[in-house]
């Protein structure tokens, strides 16, 4: 059982990559995609599997340094991590690795070493640091033929074989084969510039062992930390004194507020790092006189928390109005029944009735002041934003 280690991607792939399968990370040039292969091999190692890394675009020493940069200590896994050095001989440096390709521009030589490795190794996660580099050195057609046979042999020996591939302008035919035919799974990794969000995303183009789920996720690369799913904006809104600021602070790893005389007059801003997600949280003021600000900061939200004071049903009308102001309809949103610890707090079901909203709207109980239910609520909203599984 091999996992990619990329948050959410494993869920989308049906839990893991079955033995014998091949997967390619199809990376747009200019995007930080090569970390995907690294993260997959590191995840294999910490789950006590064996890993093999084929270093073709940098030397194994540089790859080890990259692991360190991401905060991943591979020292304890020395025996389980094998390198194939297909780089040092290019620059005329002798290799210290067990496997070395002495003529990296010769596909025959490559073939010989890789096949030997596939046959000798126990079932492993085999990651090609850069298939595109091999293609540049050995030719497109030749490399594709070699990959075909590597995948077959990997299947026979129960390996999981993973490639990083940067989609430089190769021939249509080559790109087509890679996207559609050669591999069991294709994960596309690209960049977007949508409105003002400049980001990187990944999505599944193909995975033949599970039902295909068309869903793209934004991510960021952290050093240390690796790939984290990135949610640029989650808005927290709700009527005056509902506990919005308290919620932002209890959820965030760090947060700041602009409040005067006990009420938020501009914005609460917090940052959450939780279970592989990195999200920025924007809390709005609650009072009507600040409505222009609420409109301003709720633009481009990916999801909304509507916080209400469960002991104060008079404010629910205003709460519903705020859903309109923030244009929440159509976006993933959940209602948080806050202050559940106070006497007289209404139950989530009762609040749902009073709101008279469609059945699929979720009302969750929280007590922001002591963090009860706060992370559960975050997970529910994240599930809604990322399409839930």
């Amino acid at each position, binding site marked *: 059982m091999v996992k990619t280690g990329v948050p959410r991607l494993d869920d989308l792939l049906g839990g893991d990559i079955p033995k014998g399968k091949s997967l390619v990370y199809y990376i747009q040039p200019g995007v930080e995609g090569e970390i995907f292969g690294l993260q997959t091999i590191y995840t294999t190692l910490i789950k006590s599997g064996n890993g093999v890394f084929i270093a073709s675009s940098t030397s194994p020493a540089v790859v080890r340094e990259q692991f360190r940069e991401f905060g991943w200590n591979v020292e304890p896994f020395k025996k389980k991590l094998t390198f194939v050095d297909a780089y040092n001989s290019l620059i005329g440096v002798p290799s210290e690795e067990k496997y070395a390709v002495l003529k990296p521009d010769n596909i025959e030589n490559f073939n010989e070493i890789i096949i030997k490795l596939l046959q000798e190794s126990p079932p492993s996660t085999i990651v090609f640091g850069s298939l595109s580099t091999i293609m540049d050195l050995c030719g497109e057609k030749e490399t594709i033929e070699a990959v075909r046979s590597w995948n077959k042999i990997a299947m026979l020996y129960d390996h999981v074989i993973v490639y990083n591939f940067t989609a430089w302008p190769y021939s249509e035919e080559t790109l087509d084969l890679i996207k559609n035919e050669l591999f069991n799974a294709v994960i596309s990794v690209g960049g977007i510039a949508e409105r003002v*969000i400049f980001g990187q995303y990944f999505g599944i183009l193909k995975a033949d062992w599970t039902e295909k789920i068309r869903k793209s996720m934004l991510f960021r690369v952290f050093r240390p930390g690796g790939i984290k799913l990135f949610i640029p904006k989650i808005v927290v809104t709700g009527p005056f004194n509902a506990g919005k600021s308290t919620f932002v602070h209890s959820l965030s790893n760090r947060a700041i507020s602009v409040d005067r005389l006990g009420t938020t007059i501009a914005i609460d801003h917090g940052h959450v790092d939780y279970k592989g997600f990195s999200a920025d949280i924007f809390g709005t003021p609650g009072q009507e006189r600040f409505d222009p600000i609420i409109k301003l*900061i709720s633009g481009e939200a990916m999801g909304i928390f509507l916080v209400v004071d469960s002991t104060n049903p008079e404010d629910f009308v205003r709460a519903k109005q705020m859903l309109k102001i923030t244009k929440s309809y159509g976006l993933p949103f959940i209602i948080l029944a806050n202050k559940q610890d106070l006497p007289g707090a209404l139950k989530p079901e009762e609040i749902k009735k009073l709101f008279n909203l469609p059945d699929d709207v979720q009302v969750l109980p929280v007590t922001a002041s002591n963090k009860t239910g706060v992370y559960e609520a975050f997970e529910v909203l994240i599930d809604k934003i990322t399409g839930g599984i």
Partner: protein
Amino acid sequence: MADTIELIEKVLADMKKVRGVEACAAVSRDGLLISAIMQNKRFAESFAAMSATMLGAAETATTELNKGVPDRVIVESKRGRLITAGAGPKALIVVLVDSNTGLGLVLLELEKSAEKLKELLL
């Protein structure tokens, strides 16, 4: 379009070169950080959100009073100045200036940068 971010970074890098400018950032009108040149990146996101709120609040205040859209918001403190200016309908630009540089050149360059940023994000 993928290279837009690099062009924006170039605009910011040029702005940062102006004497007295300690940090600068491009921010979306609704408070998301587009790109920043500042020492402590950790705070860049909240800095962006605050600047957008500040400019937005100032714009609401002056337009409600029939005084039109402000050209910029200048915040002065003992240890520096923070200047926020709109850069088209989608973005704004913020600079942090030390306390002893005259603002003349900074404001002139800020206006130019804002115009460039506006063009880039059209």
